[in-house]
């Protein structure tokens, strides 16, 4: 399995159509469809080489040990590891915090920004939201290291007021789901706000005008019209973020390094898989964790897909 920073999809192929309202797709001719293949071929090749084949290799590793078939032994060994259940709990809590905050705040912020009538203000707000997303995964964590350390933080006053005197206090294991949520939200939400904004623009002005004429307030419009019409996009965001969230790795890895393991090096499942592979030389155990992670992420994504009606056409 690949170990990637959050924004990358994990074995989940984006299935949402780019233009939900399009009806033109039915008039595609042979020439256009040839170009269609051309456009997806690059992605498909890379997906096979770096997504599908490694996954199959991981499946092979997970059920074998030194080349011999061992059934579910690797899974049993990994599940009995004293670090496994805490790691599951850590990741689950983080994903919960992150998904909820992402869905709630991204939708609210997108609707608010969309509602801003002053053109330059709306544009600047979107731009501002988007900027942090331009900082790549690992470097954004480094940046947060400084923000979170009360001895050097620009917001040290706030941290002291919350009772934190040192970095060790701030990154106590109990605080980590919130810390990682804040980091991930800061880096990832902007991009989603821009996407949601685009989706809001796609809602027909006729519908919005009708609502206004009927006397719907902003809140009513948002609740009864914009939200239901955004449902697919929210599911899409949920799937992508879930896949990235369960793969939590870069943030705890860098914090572990920076705090000399006060943030434990076995905090998340991917870190545990990493330790198995590269510290214990146990690639089979590592593969077992990865496959488990894949199965869970696929299962949860399925829920999002069907609940969010992602595969249904308008």
């Amino acid at each position, binding site marked *: 399995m690949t170990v990637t920073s959050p924004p990358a999809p994990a074995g989940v192929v984006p*299935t949402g*159509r780019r233009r939900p309202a399009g009806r033109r*797709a*039915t008039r*595609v*001719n*042979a020439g256009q*469809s*040839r170009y*269609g*293949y051309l456009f997806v*071929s690059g992605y*498909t*090749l890379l997906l*096979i*080489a770096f997504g599908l*084949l490694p996954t199959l290799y991981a499946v092979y590793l997970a059920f074998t040990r030194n080349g011999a078939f061992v059934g579910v032994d690797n899974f049993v060994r990994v599940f009995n*590891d*004293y*670090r496994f259940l805490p790691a599951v709990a850590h990741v689950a809590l983080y994903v919960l915090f992150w998904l909820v905050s992402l869905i709630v705040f991204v939708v609210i912020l997108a609707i608010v920004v969309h509602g801003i009538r002053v053109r330059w203000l709306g544009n600047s707000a979107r731009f501002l939201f988007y900027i942090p997303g331009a900082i790549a995964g690992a470097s954004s964590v480094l940046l947060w290291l400084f923000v979170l*350390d009360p*001895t*050097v933080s620009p917001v040290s006053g706030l941290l002291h007021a919350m009772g934190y005197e*040192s970095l*060790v*206090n701030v990154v*106590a*294991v109990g605080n980590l789901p919130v810390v990682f949520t804040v980091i991930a939200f800061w880096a990832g939400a902007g991009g989603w706000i821009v996407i949601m904004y685009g989706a809001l623009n796609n809602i027909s002005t006729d519908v919005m005008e009708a609502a206004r004429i009927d006397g719907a307030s902003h809140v009513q419009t948002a609740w009864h019209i914009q939200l239901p019409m955004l449902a697919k996009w929210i599911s899409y965001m949920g799937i992508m973020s879930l896949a990235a969230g369960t793969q939590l790795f870069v943030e705890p890895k860098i914090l*572990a*390094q920076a*705090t*000399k*393991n*006060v943030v*434990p*090096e076995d905090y998340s499942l991917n870190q545990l898989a*990493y330790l198995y*592979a*590269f*510290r*214990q*030389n*146990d*690639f089979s155990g590592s593969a077992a964790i990865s496959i488990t992670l894949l199965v869970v992420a696929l299962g949860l994504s399925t829920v999002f897909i069907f609940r969010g009606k992602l595969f249904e*056409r308008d």
Partner: protein
Amino acid sequence: MSQPMSPRRRSVRFLSVAAAAAAGLLALSGCSTSDTGGGDSTYGFTQAEQVADSEITVWVDASREPAVTAFEKAHPDIKISYETYDGSAGGSGSFQSKIALMDQAGEGWPDVVFSTQQNDAIWASKPTAGGEQGFAAPLNKGFLDQDFLDGFAAGSLDYATIDGTVYGLRNDLAQTVFYYNQKLLDEFGYDVPTTWEEYAELGDKLAAEHPGYILGSMGDSFMTYVYYGGSESPVFQSPEAGVFHSDTSDEHAQKISKIIDGMLANGTLVQDSFFSADFAAKYADKLVGVPGPVWYTGAIFQGGLAVPAGQIGVAPPLKWADGDVAAGNVGGGQWYASSHSKNLAAVKTFLEFVTSADEFQVDASSGYPAYTDAATKWLAKQAEAGYFVNDDFQTVMSDAATEVWDGWNVTSWSPETAWAKVVIPGIAAGETVESLLPAWQKELENEATVNGYTVK
């Protein structure tokens, strides 16, 4: 997805092209066999094919960069490139994880690696998961001259020696001693403590009479060696290969934990890391005394805290009032050579240079050299500079080197991670070390189990 007109033939052709391309990609990126000629095994390992004058790659931590710079100056004819990494500090295991990746890839190994940890020979000497030759090259089977190896302080190569084969060269010795600030002691009218009990009493007096002054810090995970190794607490023992033993309920472990708790409570032990951004600003003129390894000389007193000459003294390591003198050991890095190197001649020159040449060990290294000739010169240099207040600091330091407690062992993982995971956040949250001892022991035993050790 709507794809109304998609001739089946075309998709079949497309799929076969895609499959062929994927196969090509695989062949390009796939595992190539590591058969590169060579094969000479006179040095106790199978050499790679040697390429004369090829560039060697060296991994060092930031503190060892001067070693590379000094080498480049002394040997401009040898091509060398270096990368800095964390040196596996804090038991991060970076060295091992990176090498495991390269073992898997079958290429890309560095030629020389410096590690701050003592335990790397345990894994680096073993064959890889794929059954290939381990990373670390045996050094005493003909690769390095025995005369040169004999130049290291007695016992200093033990950590990296497995079944009589030496796999790593010790950079510096790291026995603990007790450092004190004579100026502050005179000002306050205190004596230098010689026992752990006196250390605790000094803490009580200092806290009562001169609050704000300190006797050390618990903010770094290597304090586990200073306070538990140095107090003969049987917390981290491997009496035989593959066996682990830890007993935090032992009398020494209990006593030292109570002392630490008392001093944390009265503020004479702080929780800031010695290497944190503002340690120097907060405590440079507040550190009255501290037990610590001899490399504190350069790394803490002359470096971070920049204490001028003529203030600091060195006393023997603290002991129990009813016990013998015993020193802890805090690291003292190791240099490893790669068994896959394509330029062993240059590697040999480099290893001999960084461990024994004056240009690094005497002039630029912060620690107490493990190579005896260099150590003598390093001590003479400190004496000449008049850095320490006591004239006998040379004998204090060299005696302590022979008094390192043998009840603290190395295993394939680092004792620092459990301390960092359990104790540091625990005391930061206001718990006592004594109350954390069972959890700490449990974590150590769990780590032992997942690393394949039997807990006894």
